[in-house]
Every structure is written in C-alpha cells, then in structure tokens.
C-alpha cells in the first residue's frame, strides 16, 4: 500500500503541475491573436499609387528612403503594400516571431540579417531566419510534414511551383495590394511569380532579390597591367584564354562543389551558352522539357563549355579539380599576387565570396560574357529569390508586404551582392560602380531569361541536371549517358 501512496503523490503532483502549465501555455498562445484580432482586408485599395510613376527604377528621383529609426512611427512615405505593414510600424506586432527559411548561409546570411535589422527594430517583429546548404531537401520535409516556416525563400521557382500545385502556398494577391505589386515590379517578374495552383493561377510569391549571371569577373589591376583586352566576341574570349595560357598562366577559375547542390555552376554555364547559340523559343522549350537534353542544341552548348573546362591548361587545378572546388572558393586565386587565374564566370552574388578589402572597379571588375552567334543578340541570364508565404498570420503578412518594397533590400544592395528587382529601389543605392554595372547590364539586355535549371522540375533542375553534369565533369560517365539520364529523369 505504501507504494500506492507514492504513486498517488506523483500523480497528484503531475496534475497540479500540468494545470499550472496549461494555464501558462494557454495564455501565451492566445494572447497574440486577440491583440491583432481584426485582420483588415488588404484588397482595400489604399491610397492609389499616385506618388510614384511606374517608370523603370533608374530614372526615378529616389524618395528619401524611409528612415525607420524611431519605433512606433509609421514612415512618411510607406509604400501602400497593405494594412498590416502600417500596423507593424505602429508596433502592433511587437514581440511576435516570424520564421523564415532559405539557402543563404555564411556571408549571405549575415547580409540578409543586416538588411532586415532596421525593420525588426522599428516594428519589434523578430524575423528568425535559418539558412541551410541542404535547403532543397530540408524545405520539402518541413512543408510536407505540415511544419512549414512562415516565409520561405526559394532561389528555384520550379521548386516553389511544385508546392503551389499542391495548394500549400498562400495566394499573395489576397495579402499584398495588387496595385502596389503592379507598380513596383515590371510585368515579367510578376508573370514569373504567377503559378498554377489547384484552383487556378495564384500569385505565389514576391521577388526579393535578383542577380545577373552573364558576367565574367577578372582582377582588373593585374589584367590591365598585363595588357589584356576585354573580349567583345566569343572568338576573342577564346583567343584571350589561349593568350593567357601561352603566357604561362591559367586563364579560368572554375569550381562547382556546393554540398548537396554540387554541379549548379555547370548548369549556369550551359544555360548562358544556350542563350547565345540558339533561339529564345528553343531555350523556353528546353526549360519546359519539350526540347530534349539529347539534342543538337544542348550538345553544342555543352561542347562549347567543355572546350574550356576540359582543357587542363585552361582551368586552375585542371578538369579533375573542378568538382572538388567549392564554388565560393573558386574565384579566390584571382586575387593572389600575381593572379593564379584570370577569369571567372559567375553571377554578381559571387562578390560576397571575394576576399575582404578589395575595391570594386579597381581590384576587380567584370565584362559581359560575349555573344557567340550575332543573330541571338546580347541575352542576359539571371536569377532571383522569390519569397513565398505558408502561414497566414497578421505579422507574417506585414513581413511579406515589407519584402515587396525596395526598402527591404536597401542595406544588402549597399553592402553589395544583390540587385533589387523592385521599381522603388534607387540606382544610387549601389555603392560601387561594378554592381551598378550589373544592374545596367540587366537593363540593357536584348533578352532576359531566368536560370533554366531553377525553372525545371526539382527532379531535373535540382537533381539529375546537377548530378549528371558533375559525373560528366569528373569523368565518371560520358556525355551520352549524362544527357540520356537527364531526359529519363524528367517527370512525365
């Protein structure tokens, strides 16, 4: 009987504790919603977008960018993105937490955190960002497990499209003032954000960051001292390559190692060359899966790429070192004295990985990857980050509305490494001439196409395309096998 009594004591103890806890728990979970009870419909067209003409961002005299140092004060010219954003600046969501997931790690993560700091301080909303190198896999586990972060940053619209088709993402046209979206993005961005849901097309996300990929970086000072000329055509590029090699140096720095995403820089190269060797229609068909990988067009592109990659005297470390070199480390030998390699084709975000203390425009610069076939003009390959929303709470609405404004990216643009897709951003934000040049390159392009592998279904764009090309570069399989393998993996 003594034992029984002890058990009873434990039991009653448990009951008391759990009642106390449930009391606390209930209070904690119920408080925030009641505070923010009335979720005002966003559709109400707040002040029509009068103040700002819908011109390209460049010409606009920039609004004095909303200074948000003073808490609980709505910035004067707050963009009419939605009611929750106003509420947020009035401090209504103080102390709430918005979770975010994305692929930014290391230096990128720091720049992202810094760019949202002012907003967090002004509104009291805590945006908890967690970046992962295994993003493509981990986000699927989270979302399909019913445990989605509030906001997810997708560098691959194709991956987002699969979640949209499953009806998991929230239609942002009900969250953000549609007039504002039309005003702040050029139509092609909005088109790319519109995706097919189970009940018709929805606005699946907002574009928060863009970058141009058709750029070849070089160590400007040494480059000029060596007397090299910037190539205007592909032939000149190959001639330059040969010249550097003959001077006893290695022309190219190339690395495609990127954890589970190993191989993606190779796909960028192929896409860039595809744009220069075939029509935009063919590129679009290829991205949709209508043009096979095992086709003369794709083969030609791969062959042009491998003419550089597989020539051991053209690549720093040789072909075999390409799959083992981290893409962020790849450009670093350019900045040794003397440079150990001279050319690096990569998106503008790569400047984040450059060694510290380099001066843009002096120590490094870039040139546009030259056209191959004149009839296809000067196309630009680009990419971007689309932010999608998975949980509908007022504070999450405020944050996603915030991301639809150029202000959300201002600090990152200033820090370098990001191009703003927003119309209300200002070219003066670009602190260095190089990043401004990227923004100009995107504007001057005869055609702009989104990174193809990011648009393809995940099984190809984040799977077989990367893997097969990695195996091809390392020599494990030949080109025929690689291309067939990718074609077979395309989901039918």
């Amino acid at each position: 009987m003594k034992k029984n009594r002890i058990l009873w004591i434990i039991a009653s103890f448990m009951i008391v504790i759990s009642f106390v806890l449930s009391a606390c728990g209930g209070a904690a979970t119920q408080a925030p919603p009641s505070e923010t009870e009335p979720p005002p419909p966003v559709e109400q067209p707040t002040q029509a977008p009068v103040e700002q003409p819908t011109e390209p961002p460049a010409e606009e005299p920039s609004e004095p960018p909303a200074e948000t140092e003073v808490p609980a004060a709505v910035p004067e010219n707050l963009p009419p993105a939605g009611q929750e954003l106003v509420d947020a600046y009035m401090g209504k969501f103080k102390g709430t937490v918005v979770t975010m997931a994305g692929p930014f790690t290391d230096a990128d993560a720091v720049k992202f955190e810094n760019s949202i700091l002012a907003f967090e301080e002004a509104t009291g909303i805590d945006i908890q960002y967690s970046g992962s190198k295994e993003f493509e896999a981990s986000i699927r586990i989270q979302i399909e497990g019913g445990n989605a972060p509030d906001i997810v940053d997708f560098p691959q619209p194709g991956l987002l499209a699969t979640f949209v088709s499953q009806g998991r993402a929230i239609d942002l046209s009900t969250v953000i003032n549609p007039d504002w979206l039309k005003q702040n993005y050029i139509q092609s961005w909005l088109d790319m954000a519109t995706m097919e849901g189970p009940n018709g097309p929805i606005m699946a996300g907002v574009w928060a960051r863009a970058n141009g990929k058709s750029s070849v970086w070089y160590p400007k000072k040494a480059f000029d001292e060596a007397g090299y000329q910037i190539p205007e055509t592909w032939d000149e590029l190959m001639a330059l390559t040969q010249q550097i090699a003959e001077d006893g140096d290695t022309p190219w720095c190339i690395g495609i190692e990127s954890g589970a995403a190993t191989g993606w820089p190779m796909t960028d190269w192929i896409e860039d060359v595809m744009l220069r060797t075939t029509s935009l229609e063919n590129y679009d068909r290829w991205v949709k899966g209508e043009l096979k990988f095992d086709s003369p067009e794709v083969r030609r592109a791969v062959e042009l790429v491998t003419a550089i990659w597989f020539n051991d005297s053209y690549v720093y470390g040789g072909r075999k070192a390409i799959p083992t070199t981290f893409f962020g480390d790849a450009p670093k030998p350019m900045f040794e004295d003397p440079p150990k390699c001279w050319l690096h084709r990569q998106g503008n975000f790569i400047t984040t990985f450059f060694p510290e203390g380099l001066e843009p425009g002096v120590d490094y610069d870039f040139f546009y990857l030259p056209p191959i076939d004149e009839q296809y003009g000067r196309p630009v390959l680009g990419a971007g980050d689309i932010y999608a929303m998975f949980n509908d709470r007022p504070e999450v609405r405020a944050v996603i509305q915030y991301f639809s404004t150029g202000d959300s990216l201002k600090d990152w643009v200033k820090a370098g490494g990001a191009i703003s897709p927003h119309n209300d951003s200002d070219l003066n934000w670009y602190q260095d001439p190089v990043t401004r040049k990227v923004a100009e390159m995107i504007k001057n392009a005869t055609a702009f196409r989104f990174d193809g592998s990011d648009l393809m279904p995940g099984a190809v764009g984040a799977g077989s395309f990367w893997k097969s090309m990695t195996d091809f570069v390392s020599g494990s399989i030949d080109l025929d096998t690689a291309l067939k393998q990718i074609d077979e993996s395309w989901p039918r």
Partner: protein
Amino acid sequence: METSSPSLIGRWLDWLTTNLGRILISLIVPVVTFFVLWQGFIFLRESQAPKIVIVLVAIVWGVGGAALLYAVSNWLIEQLPQGVRPRLLPFVFVGPALAILAWYLAIPTFRTLIFSLQDANSMRFVGLENYIFAFTDRVMREAFRNNLLWMVFGTSFCVGLGLLIAVLADRSRFESAYKAIIFMPMAISFVGAGVIWKFVYTYKGEGAGISEIGLLNAIVLALGGQSQPWLQQPPWNNFFLIVIMIWLQTGFAMVVISSAIKGIPTDLLEAARVDGANEVQIFFRITIPYIQGTLLTVTTTIVIFSLKLFDIVRVMTGGNNGTNVIANEFYLQRFTYGHAGRASAIAVILLIAVIPIMIYNLRQFRERKAFR
C-alpha cells in the same frame, strides 16, 4: 428507499449506491489522466517558453506521464473482480509497447508498401512501375552494386580486423591502451567522420602554384607520386569511402569479440595446450567455435549497417561519381526529386533485403536461448 421488501431493483440500487463512488472514480480518473497528459502535449507543442522550461516540462511530462498511465491502468484493473484481473493485467504491461510498435512500425511499413505502388504524389496506382524503375535504372543498379561492395568489403574487414586485434590485444601487456585507441572512432558520428575524411582526401588539382592540403595526397606526394582526386574515380572511390566505415566500426567488432574471447574458460585452453595443440590450432579449433555465436551477431549487425548506409556517402560525395548507395538514392528520390512512389519502392526493397539477415539473427538468438 421506502420499500422494505428486498426486490431485485432494490438490491441493484443498493449495490449501485454503495459502489457509485467507485464507478464514478473509475470513470473520472482515466479521463482526468488523459486530460492532464493532453494538456502537457498541447503545452509542449505550442509553447513559446524558453527552451530550458520546455525541456524540463518534456522530461517531467514524458517520464511522469508514463508512470502515471501505468499507475492509473494498474489501479483500474485492481478495481475489477478477482476473476478478470489476471487476464487483463498482462495487457497493461504489453499493451503500450504493442500500440507504439503498431503505430510507429507496422502502420508506416504498410503505408510505404501502398505508396510504392503509387505515382510520385501518391495519387493513383501505377502497379509495379516503381519496382521496374528500381531494378532497371542505371543509377539504381550502380547503387545496388555499391551496397554489395560495402556489404562484402566493409563487413569482412570490420569483423576480420576486429577479431585479429581482439586476439592479439588479448596477449598484450597494453591491452586496454590498444583497445581504447581502436575504439575511439566509435565516439565520432558518421557525419563528423565524413567531414574529417573529406580533409584527408582533399584534392586541389594540378598546375602552377597549387599545393595540396589533403593528408593522403601529401603522403603520396612525399613518396614521389602524383596527387589524385580520390573521390572521383569509380569504382575505387567506393573503397576510399568503405575505409571510413572500417575505421569507425572495427572498434565495435573488436570490443564485442574481445569480451567473448575473455569468456573462454582457461582450463579448456590449458587442456588443449597439455594435449599438445599449438596456438594456431587453438585459435581455429577452440577460440573460433567458442565465439561463433558472437561472430555471427557482430557480422549480421555490420551487414545491416552497411545495407542502410547513408551518412558517409551523403557528406562525402552526395552520391556523385558512381558512389551512390540505396539509402542515398532513396533520400534523393523522396526529398530532392519529390517522387514518393520510387522512394517507397526503394525503401521496401531495402527492407526485404534486410529481412533474411534479421531472421537468421533471431534464429541464432533462439538457439542460444536468448529468448524463451
């Protein structure tokens, strides 16, 4: 009760009033228990409290909850008449385990089986298509081959080396020191080991002004050889990966085998020596037969280990360059490519491949009367 004649109803009412309290309690106590546990669960799920509070609550809730459930159901049974009690009591002890087994093992297995016959989104049935894919796709065949390599070479080296070291260390003066060193890698996780060995195998390439930082390439260069991209040349890169598992698992095999060797009675060995047996004969005629059961257990454990191997490949190569294994392909299909059907089919195949080994293992246990 105004009636004095003890009618049937009256007697029943009597019984009810005297037992009403007990019945009510028997009803209320489980309900309250359930409510308490449920509240704890809700709290854990939704709380924004500091982590330390959540951890403490989780411990109290988990351990206390289990004790509470047991106490309540035990008490409930004791309220029942004598005759029923012994028949119900076993279920109090076995029931939770059975329920958890069913919930966490049987149902998921069954669901996986169904998924494996369906398409990528588990929407419609596609027959055996996923299995046909699993056995005909080039990458899958490569994965099967690699798993076979892991199984044969990984297991035989782990057990062989473990046995050798155990026997040799048994006669050494510094036995515990040797064993500690060999056993040490066991404390390192597979992912951690992968990161360590990535540095061992690092390859920087050839060309002007490139210096290797990888240990293995440094050794090769010091011996006058050429640096190699160790993890890029199939099929040899598989063996470089298998080395990692051997490094990790030999300690486990050694410790288990060593304890079995210690269990051999000394008079048996002495009798053999008196009879004129040499050490080799003793090893093959006495030691091996004596520890046969242990050897089999260790072997099957490591075989199962190498069948489901995932971490090393994932961390080191991601399955690129012909190093893919079944478990990694399963992960890719499910979480990168989003094909639930193929992933489930691979999982089922893996399960079926492990079953014979498991059955064999269990039979061994039964022969040695580990279970009764």
